[in-house]
Protein backbone atom coordinates (compact mmCIF):
# COMPACT_ATOMS: atom_id res chain seq x y z
CA UNK A 1 0.00 0.00 0.00
CA UNK A 2 2.89 2.38 0.66
CA UNK A 3 4.16 2.39 -2.90
CA UNK A 4 0.93 3.61 -4.57
CA UNK A 5 0.48 6.26 -1.90
CA UNK A 6 4.02 7.46 -2.43
CA UNK A 7 3.52 7.54 -6.19
CA UNK A 8 0.31 9.49 -5.75
CA UNK A 9 2.04 11.92 -3.47
CA UNK A 10 4.80 12.42 -6.04
CA UNK A 11 2.28 13.08 -8.75
CA UNK A 12 0.41 15.45 -6.49
CA UNK A 13 3.61 17.38 -5.70
CA UNK A 14 4.54 17.53 -9.35
CA UNK A 15 1.08 18.68 -10.35
CA UNK A 16 1.15 21.30 -7.62
CA UNK A 17 4.54 22.55 -8.78
CA UNK A 18 3.47 22.65 -12.40
CA UNK A 19 0.24 24.46 -11.62
CA UNK A 20 1.99 26.93 -9.35
CA UNK A 21 4.63 27.59 -11.96
CA UNK A 22 2.11 28.09 -14.73
CA UNK A 23 0.09 30.40 -12.50
CA UNK A 24 3.19 32.41 -11.68
CA UNK A 25 4.23 32.58 -15.34
CA UNK A 26 0.77 33.71 -16.33
CA UNK A 27 0.48 36.29 -13.58
CA UNK A 28 3.96 37.63 -14.19
CA UNK A 29 3.46 37.78 -17.95
CA UNK A 30 0.23 39.70 -17.55
CA UNK A 31 1.08 42.09 -14.76
CA UNK A 32 4.76 42.54 -15.60
CA UNK A 33 7.28 43.34 -12.93
CA UNK A 34 5.20 46.19 -11.56
CA UNK A 35 2.93 43.83 -9.61
CA UNK A 36 3.52 41.98 -6.34
CA UNK A 37 5.73 39.41 -8.07
CA UNK A 38 7.92 42.23 -9.30
CA UNK A 39 8.11 43.54 -5.75
CA UNK A 40 9.43 40.16 -4.66
CA UNK A 41 12.10 40.37 -7.33
CA UNK A 42 13.07 43.88 -6.28
CA UNK A 43 13.27 42.77 -2.66
CA UNK A 44 15.51 39.87 -3.62
CA UNK A 45 17.75 42.23 -5.55
CA UNK A 46 17.89 44.59 -2.58
CA UNK A 47 18.97 41.76 -0.30
CA UNK A 48 21.55 40.29 -2.63
CA UNK A 49 23.01 43.52 -4.05
CA UNK A 50 25.33 44.23 -1.09
CA UNK A 51 26.59 40.66 -1.27
CA UNK A 52 27.00 41.07 -5.01
CA UNK A 53 29.03 44.25 -4.54
CA UNK A 54 31.35 42.60 -2.05
CA UNK A 55 31.69 39.42 -4.09
CA UNK A 56 32.27 41.41 -7.24
CA UNK A 57 35.30 43.15 -5.72
CA UNK A 58 36.74 39.80 -4.68
CA UNK A 59 35.65 37.91 -7.76
CA UNK A 60 37.01 40.38 -10.30
CA UNK A 61 40.61 39.06 -10.15
CA UNK A 62 39.24 35.53 -10.28
CA UNK A 63 37.09 36.52 -13.20
CA UNK A 64 40.09 38.02 -14.99
CA UNK A 65 42.12 34.91 -14.34
CA UNK A 66 39.27 32.69 -15.48
CA UNK A 67 38.83 34.74 -18.64
CA UNK A 68 42.54 34.39 -19.26
CA UNK A 69 42.28 30.62 -18.88
CA UNK A 70 39.15 30.10 -20.94
CA UNK A 71 39.83 32.71 -23.61
CA UNK A 72 43.62 32.42 -23.86
CA UNK A 73 43.51 31.32 -27.49
CA UNK A 74 41.12 34.10 -28.41
CA UNK A 75 43.08 36.60 -26.36
CA UNK A 76 46.32 35.78 -28.13
CA UNK A 77 44.63 36.08 -31.47
CA UNK A 78 42.98 39.34 -30.47
CA UNK A 79 46.27 40.57 -29.09
CA UNK A 80 48.00 39.90 -32.39
CA UNK A 81 45.18 41.59 -34.28
CA UNK A 82 45.26 44.62 -31.99
CA UNK A 83 49.04 44.91 -32.27
CA UNK A 84 48.73 44.81 -36.04
CA UNK A 85 46.00 47.45 -35.90
CA UNK A 86 48.06 49.64 -33.61
CA UNK A 87 51.01 49.43 -35.99
CA UNK A 88 48.77 50.32 -38.91
CA UNK A 89 47.17 53.19 -37.01
CA UNK A 90 50.56 54.52 -35.99
CA UNK A 91 51.56 54.40 -39.62
CA UNK A 92 48.41 56.26 -40.60
CA UNK A 93 48.99 58.76 -37.83
CA UNK A 94 52.50 59.44 -39.06
CA UNK A 95 51.25 59.70 -42.62
CA UNK A 96 48.62 62.18 -41.47
CA UNK A 97 51.19 64.22 -39.55
CA UNK A 98 53.48 64.30 -42.60
CA UNK A 99 50.53 65.22 -44.82
CA UNK A 100 49.55 68.06 -42.48
CA UNK A 101 53.10 69.34 -42.40
CA UNK A 102 53.33 69.19 -46.18
CA UNK A 103 49.96 70.88 -46.42
CA UNK A 104 51.21 73.77 -44.29
CA UNK A 105 54.39 74.06 -46.34
CA UNK A 106 52.54 73.93 -49.64
CA UNK A 107 50.01 76.49 -48.45
CA UNK A 108 52.79 78.86 -47.47
CA UNK A 109 54.46 78.18 -50.80
CA UNK A 110 51.21 78.86 -52.62
CA UNK A 111 50.77 82.03 -50.64
CA UNK A 112 54.28 83.05 -51.60
CA UNK A 113 53.63 82.27 -55.26
CA UNK A 114 50.39 84.28 -55.19
CA UNK A 115 52.26 87.22 -53.69
CA UNK A 116 54.73 87.32 -56.56
CA UNK A 117 54.29 89.23 -59.79
CA UNK A 118 53.40 87.54 -63.05
CA UNK A 119 56.94 87.90 -64.29
CA UNK A 120 58.17 85.59 -61.53
CA UNK A 121 56.56 82.54 -63.20
CA UNK A 122 57.24 80.33 -60.18
CA UNK A 123 57.51 76.55 -60.39
CA UNK A 124 57.09 74.54 -57.21
CA UNK A 125 59.59 71.76 -56.62
CA UNK A 126 60.38 69.30 -53.89
CA UNK A 127 63.80 69.03 -52.32
CA UNK A 128 64.89 65.45 -52.90
CA UNK A 129 68.54 65.54 -51.91
CA UNK A 130 71.15 67.80 -50.39
CA UNK A 131 74.87 68.29 -49.88
CA UNK A 132 76.41 65.45 -51.86
CA UNK A 133 79.86 66.63 -50.71
CA UNK A 134 81.40 67.97 -47.54
CA UNK A 135 82.49 71.28 -48.93
CA UNK A 136 79.49 72.50 -50.75
CA UNK A 137 76.02 73.53 -49.85
CA UNK A 138 73.65 72.46 -52.54
CA UNK A 139 70.24 70.93 -52.74
CA UNK A 140 68.66 68.86 -55.48
CA UNK A 141 65.13 69.49 -56.68
CA UNK A 142 62.77 67.07 -58.42
CA UNK A 143 62.00 69.35 -61.37
CA UNK A 144 64.32 70.49 -64.11
CA UNK A 145 64.37 71.39 -67.76
CA UNK A 146 60.99 69.79 -68.43
CA UNK A 147 59.52 72.49 -66.15
CA UNK A 148 61.46 75.26 -67.81
CA UNK A 149 64.08 75.46 -65.09
CA UNK A 150 67.45 76.68 -66.29
CA UNK A 151 70.79 77.60 -64.77
CA UNK A 152 70.88 80.86 -62.88
CA UNK A 153 67.25 80.90 -61.85
CA UNK A 154 66.54 82.07 -58.33
CA UNK A 155 65.04 79.70 -55.80
CA UNK A 156 62.75 80.88 -53.04
CA UNK A 157 61.29 79.41 -49.89
CA UNK A 158 58.45 80.99 -47.91
CA UNK A 159 61.02 82.51 -45.56
CA UNK A 160 63.24 84.02 -48.23
CA UNK A 161 65.91 83.38 -50.83
CA UNK A 162 67.37 79.87 -50.93
CA UNK A 163 69.93 80.21 -53.72
CA UNK A 164 70.09 79.75 -57.45
CA UNK A 165 70.11 76.91 -59.94
CA UNK A 166 73.59 75.85 -60.97
CA UNK A 167 72.67 72.95 -63.21
CA UNK A 168 69.46 71.60 -64.62
CA UNK A 169 68.51 68.39 -66.36
CA UNK A 170 65.37 66.57 -67.29
CA UNK A 171 63.69 65.64 -64.03
CA UNK A 172 65.81 67.66 -61.64
CA UNK A 173 68.15 70.53 -60.92
CA UNK A 174 70.88 71.43 -58.49
CA UNK A 175 70.65 74.58 -56.42
CA UNK A 176 73.54 76.33 -54.73
CA UNK A 177 72.31 77.72 -51.46
CA UNK A 178 73.35 81.09 -50.09
CA UNK A 179 75.72 79.65 -47.49
CA UNK A 180 77.82 77.81 -50.10
CA UNK A 181 81.34 79.20 -50.24
CA UNK A 182 80.95 79.87 -53.97
CA UNK A 183 77.70 81.75 -53.48
CA UNK A 184 77.54 85.52 -53.81
CA UNK A 185 74.42 87.63 -53.76
CA UNK A 186 73.89 91.34 -54.08
CA UNK A 187 72.12 92.61 -51.00
CA UNK A 188 71.08 95.81 -49.38
CA UNK A 189 69.78 96.70 -45.98
CA UNK A 190 66.16 97.65 -45.77
CA UNK A 191 66.48 100.26 -43.04
CA UNK A 192 69.58 102.09 -44.41
CA UNK A 193 70.64 102.47 -48.01
CA UNK A 194 73.80 100.38 -48.29
CA UNK A 195 74.62 97.81 -50.96
CA UNK A 196 77.10 94.96 -50.79
CA UNK A 197 77.88 91.40 -51.85
CA UNK A 198 77.02 88.67 -49.35
CA UNK A 199 79.10 85.54 -49.56
CA UNK A 200 78.85 82.15 -47.95
CA UNK A 201 81.59 80.26 -46.18
CA UNK A 202 82.26 76.60 -45.82
CA UNK A 203 81.04 75.31 -42.49
CA UNK A 204 79.22 78.52 -41.61
CA UNK A 205 75.50 79.07 -41.50
CA UNK A 206 75.93 82.81 -41.95
CA UNK A 207 76.75 85.12 -44.84
CA UNK A 208 79.36 87.85 -44.77
CA UNK A 209 79.32 91.22 -46.47
CA UNK A 210 82.80 92.75 -46.45
CA UNK A 211 82.24 95.76 -48.64
CA UNK A 212 79.54 97.83 -47.07
CA UNK A 213 80.35 101.51 -47.13
CA UNK A 214 81.94 102.53 -43.83
CA UNK A 215 79.56 105.47 -43.66
CA UNK A 216 76.50 103.23 -43.77
CA UNK A 217 74.42 103.20 -40.58
CA UNK A 218 73.98 99.44 -40.41
CA UNK A 219 72.90 97.96 -37.14
CA UNK A 220 72.32 94.54 -35.72
CA UNK A 221 68.84 93.20 -36.53
CA UNK A 222 68.61 95.23 -39.71
CA UNK A 223 66.79 93.33 -42.43
CA UNK A 224 68.73 92.40 -45.57
CA UNK A 225 67.07 91.92 -48.95
CA UNK A 226 68.27 91.25 -52.47
CA UNK A 227 69.60 94.31 -54.20
CA UNK A 228 68.69 95.68 -57.60
CA UNK A 229 72.28 95.74 -58.84
CA UNK A 230 72.50 95.12 -62.58
CA UNK A 231 72.71 91.53 -63.88
CA UNK A 232 71.84 89.96 -60.52
CA UNK A 233 70.32 86.52 -60.92
CA UNK A 234 67.96 87.40 -58.09
CA UNK A 235 64.98 89.67 -58.42
CA UNK A 236 65.25 92.67 -56.11
CA UNK A 237 63.66 93.02 -52.68
CA UNK A 238 63.48 89.36 -51.69
CA UNK A 239 64.15 88.58 -48.06
CA UNK A 240 67.66 87.28 -47.37
CA UNK A 241 68.32 87.53 -43.66
CA UNK A 242 69.02 89.63 -40.60
CA UNK A 243 72.21 91.39 -39.56
CA UNK A 244 73.74 89.65 -36.56
CA UNK A 245 77.10 91.43 -36.28
CA UNK A 246 78.68 94.67 -37.58
CA UNK A 247 82.46 95.28 -37.55
CA UNK A 248 84.33 98.27 -38.84
CA UNK A 249 87.38 97.18 -40.79
CA UNK A 250 90.66 98.98 -40.39
CA UNK A 251 92.17 101.32 -42.96
CA UNK A 252 88.75 102.54 -44.07
CA UNK A 253 87.92 99.33 -45.87
CA UNK A 254 84.29 99.60 -44.83
CA UNK A 255 82.03 97.54 -42.66
CA UNK A 256 82.13 93.77 -42.28
CA UNK A 257 78.65 92.52 -41.60
CA UNK A 258 77.43 89.03 -40.75
CA UNK A 259 73.96 88.03 -41.87
CA UNK A 260 71.86 85.14 -40.63
CA UNK A 261 69.69 83.86 -43.50
CA UNK A 262 65.99 83.65 -42.83
CA UNK A 263 65.81 80.27 -44.50
CA UNK A 264 66.77 77.18 -42.56
CA UNK A 265 68.45 75.26 -45.36
CA UNK A 266 68.41 72.00 -43.44
CA UNK A 267 64.63 71.99 -43.12
CA UNK A 268 63.67 72.70 -46.71
CA UNK A 269 61.05 70.45 -48.28
CA UNK A 270 59.41 72.53 -50.96
CA UNK A 271 60.68 75.58 -52.83
CA UNK A 272 59.73 77.84 -55.70
CA UNK A 273 62.00 78.25 -58.68
CA UNK A 274 61.48 81.65 -60.30
CA UNK A 275 61.66 81.48 -64.08
CA UNK A 276 62.41 85.14 -63.89
CA UNK A 277 64.88 86.63 -66.31
CA UNK A 278 67.19 89.48 -65.24
CA UNK A 279 65.84 92.75 -66.49
CA UNK A 280 62.19 91.87 -65.98
CA UNK A 281 61.94 94.03 -62.89
CA UNK A 282 60.85 93.24 -59.36
CA UNK A 283 58.66 90.25 -58.62
CA UNK A 284 57.27 91.51 -55.34
CA UNK A 285 54.94 94.48 -54.87
CA UNK A 286 56.58 97.75 -53.95
CA UNK A 287 56.07 98.59 -50.30
CA UNK A 288 57.54 100.86 -47.72
CA UNK A 289 58.00 98.28 -45.02
CA UNK A 290 58.88 94.66 -44.65
CA UNK A 291 56.07 92.41 -45.75
CA UNK A 292 55.27 89.04 -44.26
CA UNK A 293 53.36 86.54 -46.31
CA UNK A 294 50.29 85.23 -44.53
CA UNK A 295 51.44 81.71 -43.77
CA UNK A 296 55.15 82.23 -43.30
CA UNK A 297 56.89 82.69 -40.03
CA UNK A 298 59.49 85.17 -41.29
CA UNK A 299 59.37 87.41 -44.27
CA UNK A 300 59.92 87.95 -47.93
CA UNK A 301 60.62 91.63 -47.90
CA UNK A 302 59.84 94.50 -50.15
CA UNK A 303 61.24 97.96 -50.14
CA UNK A 304 60.63 101.47 -51.22
CA UNK A 305 62.20 101.46 -54.67
CA UNK A 306 63.24 98.84 -57.14
CA UNK A 307 65.08 99.83 -60.23
CA UNK A 308 67.33 97.82 -62.46
CA UNK A 309 69.40 94.80 -61.62
CA UNK A 310 73.02 94.22 -60.95
CA UNK A 311 74.96 91.04 -60.45
CA UNK A 312 77.40 89.80 -57.87
Amino acid at each position, binding site marked *: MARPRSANRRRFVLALIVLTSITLITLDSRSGRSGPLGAA*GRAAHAVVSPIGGAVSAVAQPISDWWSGVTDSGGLKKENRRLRREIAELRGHQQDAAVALEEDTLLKSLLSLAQGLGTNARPVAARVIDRDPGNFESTITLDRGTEAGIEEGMAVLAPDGVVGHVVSSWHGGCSVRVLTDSNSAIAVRTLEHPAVGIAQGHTGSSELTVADFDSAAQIKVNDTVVTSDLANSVYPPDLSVGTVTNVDEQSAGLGLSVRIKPHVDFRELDFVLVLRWVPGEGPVVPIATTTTTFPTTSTSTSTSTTTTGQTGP
Partner: protein
Amino acid sequence: MRAARIIALVTLTVIVQVVLFPHIRLAGRVPDLGLVLAIAVAFDHGPEEGAIVGFVAGLGFDLFLSTPLGLTALAYSLTAYGVGVLQGGMLRAPRWFTPVIGFLGGIAGGLLFVGIGLLAGVDGVHGNRAFVTVVLAACYDGLLAPFLFMLVGTLLHDPRERMTGWVRR
Protein backbone atom coordinates in the same frame (compact mmCIF):
# COMPACT_ATOMS: atom_id res chain seq x y z
CA MET B 1 16.98 19.96 10.61
CA ARG B 2 17.32 18.41 7.20
CA ALA B 3 14.79 20.85 5.74
CA ALA B 4 16.82 23.72 7.18
CA ARG B 5 19.94 22.40 5.50
CA ILE B 6 18.11 22.09 2.20
CA ILE B 7 16.80 25.65 2.49
CA ALA B 8 20.29 26.91 3.36
CA LEU B 9 21.80 25.00 0.46
CA VAL B 10 19.23 26.29 -2.00
CA THR B 11 19.63 29.88 -0.78
CA LEU B 12 23.40 29.64 -0.99
CA THR B 13 23.19 28.14 -4.45
CA VAL B 14 20.95 30.96 -5.71
CA ILE B 15 23.21 33.62 -4.21
CA VAL B 16 26.36 32.03 -5.64
CA GLN B 17 24.63 31.70 -9.00
CA VAL B 18 23.61 35.34 -8.96
CA VAL B 19 26.70 37.03 -7.53
CA LEU B 20 29.66 34.80 -8.33
CA PHE B 21 29.12 32.92 -11.56
CA PRO B 22 28.42 35.96 -13.72
CA HIS B 23 32.14 36.62 -13.17
CA ILE B 24 33.22 33.07 -13.98
CA ARG B 25 31.72 32.36 -17.37
CA LEU B 26 32.62 29.55 -19.69
CA ALA B 27 32.50 30.62 -23.33
CA GLY B 28 30.36 33.51 -22.14
CA ARG B 29 27.78 31.28 -20.44
CA VAL B 30 26.92 30.74 -16.80
CA PRO B 31 25.97 27.33 -15.39
CA ASP B 32 22.52 26.42 -14.04
CA LEU B 33 23.69 25.83 -10.53
CA GLY B 34 20.16 25.45 -9.14
CA LEU B 35 19.36 22.88 -11.81
CA VAL B 36 22.43 20.81 -11.00
CA LEU B 37 21.57 21.02 -7.30
CA ALA B 38 18.03 19.85 -7.99
CA ILE B 39 19.34 17.01 -10.13
CA ALA B 40 21.75 15.99 -7.38
CA VAL B 41 18.97 16.05 -4.81
CA ALA B 42 16.65 14.12 -7.11
CA PHE B 43 19.41 11.61 -7.79
CA ASP B 44 20.11 11.21 -4.12
CA HIS B 45 16.70 11.61 -2.55
CA GLY B 46 14.13 10.93 -5.19
CA PRO B 47 11.99 12.87 -7.64
CA GLU B 48 9.71 14.51 -5.13
CA GLU B 49 12.47 16.25 -3.18
CA GLY B 50 14.33 16.99 -6.40
CA ALA B 51 11.27 18.65 -7.88
CA ILE B 52 10.69 20.75 -4.76
CA VAL B 53 14.34 21.84 -4.59
CA GLY B 54 14.28 22.56 -8.31
CA PHE B 55 11.14 24.62 -7.94
CA VAL B 56 12.47 26.66 -5.01
CA ALA B 57 15.93 27.15 -6.54
CA GLY B 58 14.41 28.04 -9.91
CA LEU B 59 11.95 30.43 -8.31
CA GLY B 60 14.81 32.06 -6.39
CA PHE B 61 16.76 32.43 -9.60
CA ASP B 62 13.67 33.73 -11.39
CA LEU B 63 13.57 36.66 -9.00
CA PHE B 64 16.78 37.92 -10.61
CA LEU B 65 15.84 37.25 -14.22
CA SER B 66 13.75 39.25 -16.61
CA THR B 67 11.95 36.15 -17.84
CA PRO B 68 8.52 35.39 -16.30
CA LEU B 69 8.60 34.30 -12.69
CA GLY B 70 8.13 30.55 -12.51
CA LEU B 71 9.67 29.72 -15.87
CA THR B 72 13.01 28.56 -14.51
CA ALA B 73 11.26 26.98 -11.53
CA LEU B 74 9.10 24.86 -13.82
CA ALA B 75 12.02 23.83 -16.02
CA TYR B 76 14.22 22.92 -13.06
CA SER B 77 11.52 21.01 -11.20
CA LEU B 78 10.41 18.99 -14.23
CA THR B 79 14.00 18.09 -15.06
CA ALA B 80 14.79 17.11 -11.49
CA TYR B 81 11.62 15.07 -11.29
CA GLY B 82 12.52 13.26 -14.51
CA VAL B 83 16.05 12.57 -13.27
CA GLY B 84 14.67 11.27 -9.99
CA VAL B 85 12.26 8.95 -11.78
CA LEU B 86 14.96 7.67 -14.15
CA GLN B 87 17.40 7.20 -11.31
CA GLY B 88 14.89 4.92 -9.61
CA GLY B 89 15.54 2.33 -12.29
CA MET B 90 19.31 2.31 -11.78
CA LEU B 91 21.13 0.07 -9.38
CA ARG B 92 24.45 1.86 -9.06
CA ALA B 93 25.98 4.96 -10.52
CA PRO B 94 29.69 4.96 -11.30
CA ARG B 95 31.82 8.01 -10.47
CA TRP B 96 32.10 9.23 -14.01
CA PHE B 97 28.33 9.29 -14.26
CA THR B 98 27.81 12.52 -12.34
CA PRO B 99 29.29 14.81 -15.02
CA VAL B 100 27.26 12.97 -17.62
CA ILE B 101 24.03 13.27 -15.65
CA GLY B 102 24.87 16.93 -15.03
CA PHE B 103 25.38 17.49 -18.75
CA LEU B 104 22.27 15.56 -19.82
CA GLY B 105 20.22 17.21 -17.09
CA GLY B 106 21.54 20.59 -18.24
CA ILE B 107 20.49 19.83 -21.81
CA ALA B 108 17.03 18.70 -20.69
CA GLY B 109 16.58 21.65 -18.35
CA GLY B 110 17.81 24.11 -20.96
CA LEU B 111 15.52 22.69 -23.64
CA LEU B 112 12.58 22.76 -21.25
CA PHE B 113 13.37 26.37 -20.42
CA VAL B 114 13.52 27.25 -24.12
CA GLY B 115 10.38 25.27 -24.92
CA ILE B 116 8.28 26.73 -22.11
CA GLY B 117 9.75 30.15 -22.87
CA LEU B 118 8.60 29.83 -26.47
CA LEU B 119 5.13 28.88 -25.31
CA ALA B 120 5.08 31.80 -22.89
CA GLY B 121 6.20 34.17 -25.62
CA VAL B 122 9.53 35.01 -24.09
CA ASP B 123 11.91 36.95 -26.32
CA GLY B 124 15.48 35.81 -26.60
CA VAL B 125 14.91 32.05 -26.59
CA HIS B 126 14.53 31.78 -30.35
CA GLY B 127 17.01 30.58 -32.91
CA ASN B 128 20.15 28.49 -33.00
CA ARG B 129 21.99 30.66 -30.52
CA ALA B 130 19.59 29.57 -27.79
CA PHE B 131 20.48 25.94 -28.46
CA VAL B 132 24.19 26.72 -28.52
CA THR B 133 23.72 28.42 -25.16
CA VAL B 134 21.88 25.40 -23.81
CA VAL B 135 24.69 23.05 -24.88
CA LEU B 136 27.50 25.25 -23.55
CA ALA B 137 25.68 25.82 -20.25
CA ALA B 138 25.10 22.06 -20.03
CA CYS B 139 28.84 21.47 -20.44
CA TYR B 140 29.45 23.85 -17.57
CA ASP B 141 26.77 22.02 -15.57
CA GLY B 142 28.54 18.74 -16.25
CA LEU B 143 31.81 20.15 -14.96
CA LEU B 144 30.21 21.37 -11.76
CA ALA B 145 28.02 18.34 -11.21
CA PRO B 146 30.59 16.23 -9.28
CA PHE B 147 31.11 19.01 -6.74
CA LEU B 148 27.39 19.56 -6.21
CA PHE B 149 26.68 15.85 -6.01
CA MET B 150 29.41 15.59 -3.40
CA LEU B 151 28.01 18.60 -1.52
CA VAL B 152 24.51 17.19 -1.52
CA GLY B 153 25.81 13.77 -0.49
CA THR B 154 27.72 15.34 2.42
CA LEU B 155 25.21 17.91 3.67
CA LEU B 156 22.01 15.98 3.15
CA HIS B 157 23.43 12.64 4.15
CA ASP B 158 21.12 10.62 6.35
CA PRO B 159 23.16 8.29 8.58
CA ARG B 160 20.32 5.78 8.56
CA GLU B 161 20.70 5.35 4.78
CA ARG B 162 23.18 2.93 3.35
CA MET B 163 26.00 4.63 1.39
CA THR B 164 27.77 2.69 -1.28
CA GLY B 165 30.25 4.52 -3.44
CA TRP B 166 30.92 8.14 -4.11
CA VAL B 167 27.26 9.13 -4.10
CA ARG B 168 24.38 7.42 -2.51
CA ARG B 169 23.18 4.15 -3.91
